[in-house]
């Protein structure tokens, strides 16, 4: 047992369980594929909510290995991609304010807003810095007390608690020049919105593993209860994803939808209560604008009144002007799962990772980027 205090760190370091290679075993993958093959009779389309899953599925070539009855469709689980143009324009306008240091995860830098990106703003002189963690932004605020340091809070329930914890640390340290533009979003309401719209027929949902580490597998119980749709929560290694697909095929064929936790080493039914507690202490739930889905009730996080002094949008009012959508870009449809990326007329011809038109081609979790990079004969 890894937590046994008698075991030294070096013994654990040398022990076999590393939590990665074990879950990539080709022999075990073959038997899972055989079980899927044996069980799958009717055509079934499953949505992987999470863009991390889309990329893992492509990287490990899982689509080609699955029987033709099983189709996998990308969902809206890419926080960068679902950021609405109006929010992105606001972030760019904030970055251009004199005295501001805008800090952001690297994925956001190249996403085109209505008129340029954070990268073009940086090229024009704005102080935009890539950080790995919200804590790095906090350190920049300590290092530059005379500047206003804004952290671009993009991410789902996986990331929002880390930003909340950083705000609590800023409060405890008496930092008065640290701000957050909260564009955080919640995943179950977006899944509901897709099912409510009824545009795409889904036989099951592959639940996002690391979101569910935080919110817990119980948070997906509404899928079988309200929609009769099975859900299997998956980790990000090939065996994790195949296990989830096998569970979904079984539930779909048996007509017995439920929530299966196919990632029990990383996900508990109740989730991470500490992380959820910190997230809800700092943020409250609000409506939010999603690219592709529009305004989704109770799907966003804004700072609670006690923490508004950290709110960049209230502290620095800016008018980014009217938004402009990119003509022909079908990112919204890709995010709703109504089309695959090659169905977009811009895909690969006009829109490429070097010259992205829409965010799904920019982000490491974007469906278009996955299809472009790994699509091969599929495209």
């Amino acid at each position, binding site marked *: *047992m*890894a*937590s*046994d*205090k008698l075991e*030294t760190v070096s013994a*654990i*370091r040398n022990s076999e*369980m*590393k*939590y990665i290679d*074990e879950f990539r*075993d080709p*022999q*075990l993958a*073959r*038997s*899972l594929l*055989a*079980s899927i093959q044996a069980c799958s009779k009717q055509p079934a389309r499953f949505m992987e909510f*999470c*863009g*991390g899953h889309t990329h893992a599925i492509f990287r490990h070539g899982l689509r080609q290995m699955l029987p033709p009855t099983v189709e996998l469709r990308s969902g809206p*689980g*890419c*926080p*960068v991609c679902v950021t609405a143009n109006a929010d992105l324009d606001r972030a760019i306008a904030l970055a251009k304010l004199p005295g501001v240091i805008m800090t952001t*995860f690297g*994925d956001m830098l190249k996403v085109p807003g209505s008129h340029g990106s954070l990268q073009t703003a940086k090229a024009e002189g704005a102080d935009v810095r890539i950080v*790995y*963690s*919200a*804590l*790095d932004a906090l350190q920049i605020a300590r290092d530059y007390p005379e500047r206003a340091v804004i952290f671009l809070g*993009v*991410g*789902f329930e*996986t*990331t929002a*608690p*880390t930003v909340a*914890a950083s705000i*609590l*640390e800023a409060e405890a340290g008496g930092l008065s020049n640290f701000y957050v533009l909260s564009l955080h979003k919640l995943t179950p309401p977006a899944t509901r919105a897709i099912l409510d719209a009824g545009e795409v027929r889904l036989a099951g949902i592959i639940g*996002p*593993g*690391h979101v569910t*580490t*935080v919110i817990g597998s119980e948070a997906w119980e509404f899928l079988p209860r309200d929609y009769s749709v099975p859900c299997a929560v998956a980790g*990000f290694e090939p065996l994790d994803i195949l*296990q989830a697909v096998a569970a979904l095929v079984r539930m779909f064929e048996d007509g017995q939808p439920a929530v299966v936790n196919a990632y029990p*080493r*990383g*996900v*508990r039914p109740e989730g*991470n209560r*500490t*992380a959820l507690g*910190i997230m809800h202490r700092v943020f409250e739930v609000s409506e939010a604008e999603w690219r592709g889905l529009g305004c989704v009730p109770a799907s966003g996080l804004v700072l609670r009144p006690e923490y508004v002094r950290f709110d960049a949008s209230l502290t620095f009012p800016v008018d980014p002007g009217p938004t402009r959508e990119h003509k022909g870009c079908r990112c919204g449809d890709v995010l709703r799962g109504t089309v695959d990326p090659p169905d977009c007329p811009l895909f690969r011809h006009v829109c490429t990772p070097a010259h992205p038109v829409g965010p799904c081609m920019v982000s490491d*979790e974007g469906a278009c980027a996955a299809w472009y990079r790994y699509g091969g004969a599929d495209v």
Partner: protein
Amino acid sequence: MCLAIPTLITSVEGTTGKAEIGGVERTISLALTPEAQVGDYVLMHTGFAIGVLDAEEAQETLRLLEELAEFYTDEMNDE
């Protein structure tokens, strides 16, 4: 963006720890996982541990998959 990497905790001091990833040591916040101890593997996401990996569950998953593999190997041999 929801990428999280299994990382071994090598030391703990308050709500901060050291984590080893690919042989490189870096600082990790344990603010979201106060239960994490030295010797635990955690899921590291943007500098924070967001969950402690359960070694017993990991072994159990692999055991079930090995059983499945044995079943299909036997079946393939029977054919």
